[in-house]
């Protein structure tokens, strides 16, 4: 055997010393000597934060503490492993691997106990070869350097290595989606499907429909994918989003419930279900999902104070104020000195004390909330809305209106959130006012956009730039305005050349768009255009 583990740094994660020992013995016979062992998730994370490993063998079930999945989630989010490293999840039985998978984190491979030395070696070998072959693409992908990633992927696709052809096709399609090039992505999936009905290609088509806003079609495709491949968890998640987009809220809840029945460990999905069920008024389901998210969160990188506050609010709504306060205390313990969770706590306490008629405590918690709100750098939009409601209930309608007004201006193109605002204002008996503001803002936005498009088409770019600058003053955090502004600036750069200031302005706007949570493929497509312009500029310089 030519392949050797001699130079590889290996981490073995298992809570049973006996199991660690037997894996170590196997690895020794494969010439490995740099073998590190840990018995828990916390130690595993610490080890990976300190050293770069080439191979990680992780048992899925680690007793108390983090599970193998939670370790993997954290590894991926915190980028604790090099791109060429192999992560193999060891499971006790032939559970369809994907069920164990979270939303976006999958190990490179699963290995079922018991396994032989040779099985271990072939798995490691196969995966290392692939990871090393694809590492340069993955590296650029991670940096979101799309042009480079695509270039590398293309050149490998055209080399004759049949072995990785299917991986590369999948990767190339994903890169096309990431850069908003749906037509190309679709052509790859169609090609693959002509050969064989493969679920990842079907899923890809469904995802494209979803991203393009063809929700009905996305639903049709994804329902079929879920039917044919009930273990493909990402299809459930995308299907749920598509259902929500067409207001099929009951269906969304049902499909998330089915997915959770198959794979209860995925915290992000539990969080999603909690929100959807609460919105549907299914308090029991929401309660259970929040509790699951809180429990899973204790060992997860995805833990969120929103799960605690969601649970506490449900209790409060059910007039279980004692339980609500218990949850808040648990949140404070888990998120020590975190401003956002302190704000969440203060807002819920305020409603609880209002219900109890504790005037002094009401005033105290309200003042605390106001201070925290001011100090918090970025407040999630839902939390801002919550703040507005509390302001109103504490008789500061002016402040409440100001917050709601900003929310409407900045998120006017987010239909789901606008209905949330409407519902909350309706509860306060102020539906009329917010409706008026929403309609007015919508009209304004449409007018600006139409005018911008007109100027753009007529080639009156400086005027278009001015228009967008003014629009941004009015709605500083509006995603549509920022995106259109960037497009106009790019066109301007294309026509009349680039300079340092222009590029800086474009880059700043791109960063802001990203921070505001603009859809990744929209930013990807702008990045591609940006790099094309820079490229053309460079060529122009070297030619001229």
């Amino acid at each position, binding site marked *: 055997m030519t392949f050797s583990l001699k130079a590889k740094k290996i981490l073995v994660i298992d809570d049973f010393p006996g199991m660690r020992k037997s894996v170590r013995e196997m690895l020794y016979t494969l010439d490995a000597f740099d073998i590190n062992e840990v018995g828990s998730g916390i130690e595993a994370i610490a080890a990976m934060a300190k050293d770069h490993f080439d191979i990680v063998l992780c048992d899925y079930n680690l007793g108390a503490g983090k599970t193998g999945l939670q370790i993997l989630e954290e590894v991926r989010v915190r980028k604790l492993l090099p791109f060429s490293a192999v992560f193999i999840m060891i499971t006790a039985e032939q559970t369809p691997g994907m069920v164990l998978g979270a939303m976006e984190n999958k190990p490179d491979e699963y290995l079922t106990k018991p396994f032989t030395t040779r099985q271990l070696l072939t798995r490691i070998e196969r995966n290392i070869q692939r990871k090393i072959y694809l590492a340069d693409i993955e590296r650029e992908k991670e940096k979101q350097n799309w042009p480079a990633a695509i270039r590398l992927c293309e050149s490998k696709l055209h080399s004759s290595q049949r072995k990785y052809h299917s991986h590369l096709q999948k990767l190339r399609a994903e890169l096309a989606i990431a850069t908003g090039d749906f037509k190309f992505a679709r052509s790859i999936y169609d090609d693959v499907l002509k050969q064989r009905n493969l679920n990842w290609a079907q899923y890809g088509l469904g995802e494209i429909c979803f991203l393009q806003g063809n929700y009905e079609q996305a639903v049709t495709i994804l329902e079929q994918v879920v039917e044919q491949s009930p*273990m493909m968890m990402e299809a459930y998640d995308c299907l749920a989003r598509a259902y929500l987009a067409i207001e099929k809220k009951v269906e969304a809840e049902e499909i998330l419930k089915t997915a959770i029945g198959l794979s209860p460990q995925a915290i992000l999905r539990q969080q999603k279900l909690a929100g959807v069920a609460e919105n549907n008024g299914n308090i029991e389901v929401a309660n259970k999902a929040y509790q699951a998210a809180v429990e899973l969160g204790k060992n997860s990188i995805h833990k969120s104070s929103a799960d605690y506050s969601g649970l506490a609010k449900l209790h409060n709504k059910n007039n279980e104020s004692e339980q609500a306060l218990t949850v808040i205390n648990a949140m404070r313990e888990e998120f020590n000195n975190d401003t956002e969770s302190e704000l969440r706590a203060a807002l819920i306490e305020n409603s609880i004390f209002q219900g109890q008629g504790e005037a002094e405590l009401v005033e105290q918690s309200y003042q605390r909330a106001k201070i925290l709100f001011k100090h918090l750098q970025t407040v999630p939009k839902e939390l801002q809305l919550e703040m507005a409601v509390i302001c109103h209930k504490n008789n500061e309608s002016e402040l409440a209106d100001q917050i709601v007004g900003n929310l409407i201006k900045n998120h006017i193109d987010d239909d789901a959130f606008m209905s949330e605002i409407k519902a909350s204002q309706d509860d306060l008996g102020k539906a009329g006012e917010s409706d008026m503001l929403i309609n007015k803002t919508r009209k304004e936005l449409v007018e600006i956009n139409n005018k911008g498009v007109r100027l753009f088409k007529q080639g009156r770019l400086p005027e278009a730039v001015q228009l967008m600058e003014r629009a941004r003053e009015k709605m500083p955090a509006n995603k549509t305005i920022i995106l259109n502004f960037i497009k106009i600036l790019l066109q301007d750069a294309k026509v009349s050349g680039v300079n340092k200031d222009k590029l800086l302005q474009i880059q700043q706007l791109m960063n802001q768009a990203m921070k505001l949570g603009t859809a990744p493929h929209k930013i990807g497509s702008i990045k591609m255009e940006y790099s094309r312009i820079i490229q053309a500029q460079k060529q122009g310089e070297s030619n001229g």
Partner: protein
Amino acid sequence: MVDKVTPELNFSTILGCSVHDMKNSLGIIQNLVSQLAKDSRHSDNPQFGQLEFEANRMNNILMQLLVLYKIDLTRFSLNIDEYPVEDLLNEAVAQQEVLLALNSITIKVECQPDLYCYCDFNVITSALGTILNNAQRYAKQNILFSAKQHNQFMVLCIEDDGEGYPETFFYAQEKVQDQVNFNTGSTGLGLFFAQTIAAMHINDDERGATEIDNNSSLGGARFRLFLP
């Protein structure tokens, strides 16, 4: 999408539930055995190898039972992708490593590196592993494990130099289900599993299949798995 399981007691439900427990116990036994073997002064005693092998075989049978049980509940679905055929063969051989060393049977793998096929990697390698396991029990010295493309199918072939399948096996070929003859030990279950899994592999109008005969180039039994 998923049929609801009726709460009433039936044998398949009981089996399904107990397989999990059996597998867990078996895992512990396997760990203990290898632990004992390492700590023992007689670690080279071939009986340890035999023990490990039998536990392994039991584990494989249980896994197949579990898959069949899930198929019965329509809770099982394949995860199809494209794989190099060489990887499939190597994985099946790797699974049987312990037995290989034990029985001093030579297994020859013949496969062009540029062959690819579509299948569910885990179930196909497990099915092939079991057939290999059987072949090793009946082979005298040699096993040939090969693959080649034939029309729309990838044909995976396991041949041995033993006595061949008994006549009774062939009568049951048409009605596969009858073939689970418990007198033949895991041979019947292994074949049934392979047949069931193969038939779930579908491409357009083509469906996977298995075939057994005694036309081995080595003089014994021949098993063939056809993947569309």
